[in-house]
């Protein structure tokens, strides 16, 4: 991943499949969790880690790495899935997810996990943190990017917009923000809980280079990440990724209430089978 080899989409699809599989392994341990988000964002994370980002998994603190901030702490399951696939974590550790003394806590924290750059969970910390790191990287004349993953519910948090104002003010073109727009938050559909649309126009008005893509279309994601990195204007960048909760596992995609899912033991077996069926198809 050093200097990001440009993987073909078929290789990325294989990566994304294993990221999803890793997430199901973790969710099965607890019998419940944020599996629908993990499946939904797996393509975004795969393109980030296996196409766009310049990282060394065996050297998580390598100074010239691109940073990745997980603002949505409960997406820890998705992050560990991709970190494992990238080689930051041994696969054997997946079954410790959420257990006592595990390095994989339910909500991602920096002191627990190699490759976790921030403690998220208190939603709204991510973009302000990215601003600080973006400023710091500019001070060091670093060419690294700060990638930051937020949720669509997070768009209702005031500090996100404080940070957006300042990211444009300081021309932080080293920030690439990602919004996992899966249309679901804790209390229900994000469009009815607190509509934050039109998001593209809002971020454009705040001075961002904005793209909106199907977050489960690998080719579209690759193009968007490339454009974000190569955009010539001194603007912060944001990619709004429309994703499908549960993507890749049909009966989870179809589930109506899917922010936090509990399944019986046999249903987790069905999840692997459904994932395999979709991938083969």
């Amino acid at each position: 991943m050093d200097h990001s080899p440009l993987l073909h989409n078929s290789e990325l699809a294989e990566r994304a499949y294993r990221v999803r599989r890793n997430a199901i392994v973790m969710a099965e341990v607890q019998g419940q969790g944020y599996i629908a988000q993990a499946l939904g964002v797996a393509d975004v994370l795969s393109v980030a880690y296996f196409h766009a980002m310049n990282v060394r998994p065996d050297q998580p603190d390598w100074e010239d790495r691109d940073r990745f901030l997980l603002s949505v702490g409960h997406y820890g399951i998705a992050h560990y899935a991709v970190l494992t696939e990238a080689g930051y974590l041994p696969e054997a550790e997946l079954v410790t997810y959420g257990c006592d003394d595990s390095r994989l806590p339910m909500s991602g924290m920096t002191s627990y996990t190699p490759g976790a750059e921030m403690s998220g969970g208190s939603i709204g910390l991510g973009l302000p943190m990215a601003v600080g790191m973006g400023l710091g990287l500019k001070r060091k004349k670093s060419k690294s990017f700060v990638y930051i993953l937020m949720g669509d519910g997070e768009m209702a948090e005031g500090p996100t917009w404080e940070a957006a104002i300042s990211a444009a003010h300081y021309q932080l073109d080293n920030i690439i923000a990602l919004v996992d727009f899966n249309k679901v938050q804790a209390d229900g559909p994000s469009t009815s809980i607190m509509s934050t649309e039109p998001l593209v126009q809002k971020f454009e008005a705040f001075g961002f280079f904005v793209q909106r893509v199907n977050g489960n279309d690998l080719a579209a994601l690759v193009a968007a990440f490339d454009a974000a990195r190569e955009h010539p204007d001194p603007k912060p960048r944001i990619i709004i990724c429309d994703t499908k909760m549960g993507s890749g596992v049909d009966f989870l995609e179809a589930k109506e209430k899917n922010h936090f899912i509990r399944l019986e033991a046999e249903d987790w077996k069905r999840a692997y089978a459904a994932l395999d069926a979709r991938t083969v198809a």
Partner: protein
Amino acid sequence: MNTTTKQPSVDKALPVTPAIISSSVDEGHRTKSAPFGHALIEEARRRPEIVGMSADLAKYTDIHIFAQAYPDRFYQMGMSEQLMATAAGGLAKEGFIPFATTYATFAARRCYDFISQAVAEQDANVKFVGGLPGLTTGYGPSHQATDDLAIFRAMPNLTVLDPCDALDVEQMVPAVAEHKGPVYMRVLRGQVPLVLDEYNYRFELGKAALLRGGRDVLIISTGFMTMRALDAAKELQKDSVDVAVLHVPTVKPLDEVTILREASRSGRLVVVAENHTVIGGLGEAVAGCLMRGGVSCAFRQIGLPDQFLDAGTLPVLQDRYGISRKAVVDRIRCWL
């Protein structure tokens, strides 16, 4: 009190004092100008990783002179305290030492979750500097940080400091920069009293300092109440009341060893004095320490009452709420 509507007051003689003043200079005190800003400039010369930040209050926290000296090392974050607190965490992750200033009320009340989760939990090397500590403005509760010590004492992994005077402030800055980890420091700005140079004092992080001995009363104080305690001690000396003063600039972690040693010397009235509500600050910290240490002594608290304080002029308010020099002397006399 704020539960009833104020009645108009037009007949009273109106004392003219600026409502926003951030240090309490009593008559006869020498002063030093902007000790925090000057000390930060000095320390920044030695440490290139120091950067300054403010949320539109640079001028009112004395960091504006740092900004003038090092314009490319200062980040104006606008009126966005939560952003500033979190971005400071981000700068610290990249190896810098941010000194981030705002008023103490906004740092404590508005930014709590951000300082807790983006800085303290992640052990980010950020130094928060809060202006207008306790009752140092007549603006009213929005600006009177009567509760910041209580709020920040409850935060794990955070060092909490309350300086007495200009000397304390300027000695704290290099110690705070040297310390690896998050710090909250109250600051006195503008013309700041200079008192402690008469007491052969040197600030040491985590240490209390006995500034004078005395047989009858032991005042354990922090912040500018140490200045009031020293003045009160001189005044009470005239009545042959012998007052010791133990200055506790580090409110957390508390120097329990020194406090227990001094408080267990028998027969003295122990008075804790702070420019802060009597809830959750130094007074209750010392009380807990004495109880756990098995020291029983006569114990009194001088601090602000558990209420939203009035707006008005500072000398009147400090007298009204019992933290002026005269109020301290009067209350100790009453208790003897």
